[in-house]
């Protein structure tokens, strides 16, 4: 197995995230149009992200009274950086990863946990009521699904006998984890929806808090935060494809193409969920997460453990 030089691999992660963020914005525009019953031409959808950038650049920056300016500015950078760190341990084709470390799923889990800090601080920093409420509400919800992610990732590591994501992909040559461990992917997608706060789990930047965590963001700041959120969505999509959907395994097409198709497919499902599934009540979700989802994650571990005996 050949490995890419680190410089090339880092450039590849940046390229994947850039294309991915653009793609997420285009798909978001298309899905929102379809759901609303509007007509939208392909050219219009492709131009939508650029138009959003133009609007953000020309908008007047506003600020709040006594914000924590450093945290406020750095939060989107931290969030995007964590997306890149998470993607760095996901091989995009055999041997093509920044670093397919032996502790791949632990690094991914750490990036995911640190994203909670970035999202919370992004709400805390403006020193304003609505973002603050959103930040605290997010932490309450996030703590209830954080364990799910670790359990389903550990379950995927059992048949691979390794915590490296490359080894987990290799272990799915015969049978994909989505069939072998049917509970894994749905639970992981719930975590993905939570960490990128979209659709049913948009408890952060939601309309019931007038924009919540991003209520005081303006112009470029808002753009950076949206882009970072889309980057995290791509990192989660790539991890879902690698850990549960067999990664680069597939007939006829080259390995990297399969991986790209699966990642794009998962990302489209997540973006679609944003428009077709209503937001759940945070309180109800927390109860549901501890009493239903967590036992399901345990069951997923038991299934994986029994199968490997």
């Amino acid at each position, binding site marked *: 197995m050949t490995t890419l030089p680190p410089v090339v691999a880092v450039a590849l992660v940046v390229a994947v995230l850039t294309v991915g963020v653009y793609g997420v914005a285009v798909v978001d525009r298309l899905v929102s149009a379809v759901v609303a019953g509007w007509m939208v031409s392909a050219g219009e959808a492709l131009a939508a992200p650029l138009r959003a950038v133009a609007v953000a650049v020309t908008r007047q920056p506003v600020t709040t009274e006594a914000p924590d300016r450093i945290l406020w500015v750095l939060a989107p950078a931290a969030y995007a950086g964590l997306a890149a760190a998470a993607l760095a341990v996901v091989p995009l084709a055999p041997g093509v990863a920044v670093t397919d470390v032996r*502790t791949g799923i632990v690094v991914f889990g750490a990036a995911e946990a640190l994203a909670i800090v970035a999202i919370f601080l992004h709400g805390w920093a403006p020193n304003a009521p609505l973002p603050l409420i959103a930040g605290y509400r997010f932490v309450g919800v996030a703590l209830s699904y954080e364990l799910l992610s670790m359990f389903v990732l550990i379950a995927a590591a059992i048949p691979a006998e390794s915590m490296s994501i490359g080894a987990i992909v290799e272990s799915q040559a015969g049978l994909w984890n989505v069939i072998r461990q049917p509970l894994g992917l749905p639970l992981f997608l719930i975590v993905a929806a939570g960490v990128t706060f979209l659709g049913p789990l948009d408890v952060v930047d939601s309309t019931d808090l007038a924009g919540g965590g991003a209520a005081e963001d303006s112009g470029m700041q808002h753009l950076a935060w949206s882009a970072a959120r889309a980057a995290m969505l791509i990192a989660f999509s790539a991890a879902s494809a690698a850990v549960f959907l067999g990664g680069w395994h597939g007939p006829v097409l080259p390995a990297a193409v399969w991986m790209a198709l699966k990642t794009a497919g998962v990302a489209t499902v997540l973006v679609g969920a944003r428009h077709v599934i209503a937001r759940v009540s945070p309180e109800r979700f927390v109860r549901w997460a501890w009493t239903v989802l967590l036992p399901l994650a345990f069951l997923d571990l038991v299934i994986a453990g029994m199968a490997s005996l």
Partner: protein
Amino acid sequence: MTGVDVAFWVFALAAVWSGYRVFRTDSMVRASFLLLASFLNVGAILVLLLAEYLGTALLFMMTVEMVVMALFMVMFMMNPAGLNPMEMVHQPRLAAVAGVVTTAGLGLVAVVVDFPDAPVDPAAETIRALGTELLGGSMLVFESAGVTLLATMVCAVILSAARGRYGDGTAGSVAPPLEPGGDHRPEDDLVGDGGGGHHHHGGH
């Protein structure tokens, strides 16, 4: 000086600096996350020492712990949202003396003791060795501690749950008096049918 040496010094200085800042800042939330920054740098040093699993596990364990800590401190400290400036040290003189003595003691140990120099082979199966230790020789100790902690967490969640098998967790709670030593006014209660804000019981 290799790249690893440079990385070590960067992480070590960042860990010490953010640890120092914990006590110099004026907010619970900032203090929690500066402490987290310190831990993250220590985790990175563990990874440099090829304790990859311990280092990366430290990253996510400490992250979740500090998030919980920040949340609960703000909830219990009556400092709205952790935004109001407040002193981060208690008994500053004693704390300063204890800090200087501890730092000097540990520093002396670090300088005087002749530590063994046993570089780890990067290809060594350190994670497997750790797993064998945890689930082999030390299994009884670790499993007992693990199950005890799990039971504690489950019990804490049950005790703090709003609704339990013995009814509402808020049953019988009364509002504090507005004046110190004043009388309890049932109409201030947020729960129960004492009059509060919710008049949907119909049967009064």
